[in-house]
């Protein structure tokens, strides 16, 4: 029997995505930052790649960036939630790190190197408890909303 939908959204990977603390808040990308040299990294890591400091701290990363490069996937990879054709990108965040992500809510034709983008979430299936799983994604920045 199918588990009832709880209506809750939980991150597929809590080491990548932090959900907003309050309604109306924005989700954030999780990263690691170095108290010694200030370097910032996408995703969690223990040791600084820049200065070898041990014990990087969890931090949230800039929700905005630009497309460093991209492609449009047109052959469905097994296990992928996004369905072809979909764009993926390496996004250079405004605070430094580069992170790979799907581009959603954005027409494929407008995707280009240098496109300003902002973080959002995309659905990544459902867990056994009926929660909707979400993962990080980016979309073309909607400047007029800012």
């Amino acid at each position: 029997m199918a588990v009832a939908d709880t209506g809750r959204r939980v991150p597929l990977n809590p080491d990548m995505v932090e959900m907003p603390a309050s309604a109306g808040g924005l989700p954030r990308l999780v990263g690691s930052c170095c108290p010694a040299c200030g370097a910032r990294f996408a995703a969690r890591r223990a040791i600084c790649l820049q200065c070898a400091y041990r014990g990087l701290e969890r931090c949230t990363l800039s929700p905005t960036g630009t497309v460093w490069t991209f492609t449009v996937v047109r052959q469905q990879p097994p296990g992928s939630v996004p369905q072809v054709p979909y764009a993926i990108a390496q996004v250079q965040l405004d605070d430094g790190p580069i992170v790979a992500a799907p581009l959603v809510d954005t027409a494929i034709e407008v995707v280009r190197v240098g496109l300003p983008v902002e973080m959002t979430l995309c659905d990544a299936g459902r867990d056994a408890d009926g929660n909707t799983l979400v993962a990080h994604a980016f979309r073309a920045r909607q400047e007029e909303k800012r």
Partner: protein
Amino acid sequence: MTGERDVVVLGVGLHPFGRFPDRSLDDLARHAAVAALDDAGITFREIEAGFVGRVGGTGPPVGVGTRIFSELGQHGIPITNIELACGSSSRALMHAADMIRAGSAETAMVIGVEKMERGMLQVGGAGATSYASVMGLNVMPAAYAMRAQRHMAEYGTKPEHFAQVSVKAHRNAMHNPYAQYRVAITLEEVLGSRMVCDPLTLYQCCPTSDGASAVVLASETWARRRTASPVWLAAWAGGSPVYENGHEGLGEGPTGAVARRAYARAGIGPEDIDVTQVHDAFTPGEILTIEELGYVKPGDGGPFVFGGGTEITGKYPVNTDGGLLSRGHPMGATGGAMVTEVVRQLRGQAGARQVEGARAGLVQNAGIGGVNVLVLSA
């Protein structure tokens, strides 16, 4: 350098690349190994160390090296498995050469072998269920496609520049009896084939393949008793991705820096290389790599290839045997096949694909997590 011995490539051999459902991994490996022993003119009992480069598609995952070498004989030599994705057998060759240079062995054999499943290459193997694969990011052609898009944005490289790599590869493979695809293809056919990851169409992606390669190395003093005209493994260098300015190893590694180390050890420069094999798993592999190797300035790779600069008759002949695109890419076997082609070129045995007067050759073989550059000379 004092105390270091020179290394000779004494023998090379291949099992044809393609699809061989009736042949086991052992069959493929044994065929290539026997061919390399015969080419070297020696028996297996004269081999003092064995290496196997294999990634591991179908077949047993553990102890494969010892099992494969047991097909040839059992005289107790050390046998080592090396896995560096698509760069496995060239990395194995480097370690075999290190043993000989250091005096730990007079001879060594490297077997590269693979049996692969059909379909699109998956980063981390078929069926990987990582966060990245769920998010649709685990797509091998996409990695090359994104490097191509960046190159297009930075330098104005065009889709037809990339497509031309495949046209040239297929034409060269027509003259290679070991190649998987021996059929010519036009620029229009390459550009018109199904789009896989923009700007890469299907005919710009290497096939999955079965196949094997084998290479016999020997110390100079040992080799001198067998051959009057040795091909030298003059220099070798390997690397892994470098963290730089927020970029965490987007590519396979620092090809440019690794090549400069190999040039310095060989005492030559890019202008001295007569024939080259590069890792064209996808067409951007050739254009981006010839820039990193210093053959052309960054950004000039596309027009250089499109103008015929990497043809057999061009200034820098590249992938004279058809490359990964047409010769095929049984992952563990590829590095050894690249070395095999350069050796045949330097011996003047390449037939219709011979580069006239080739005296020095270079192999660039890359896999997820690493890149290798080897320089050979006649």
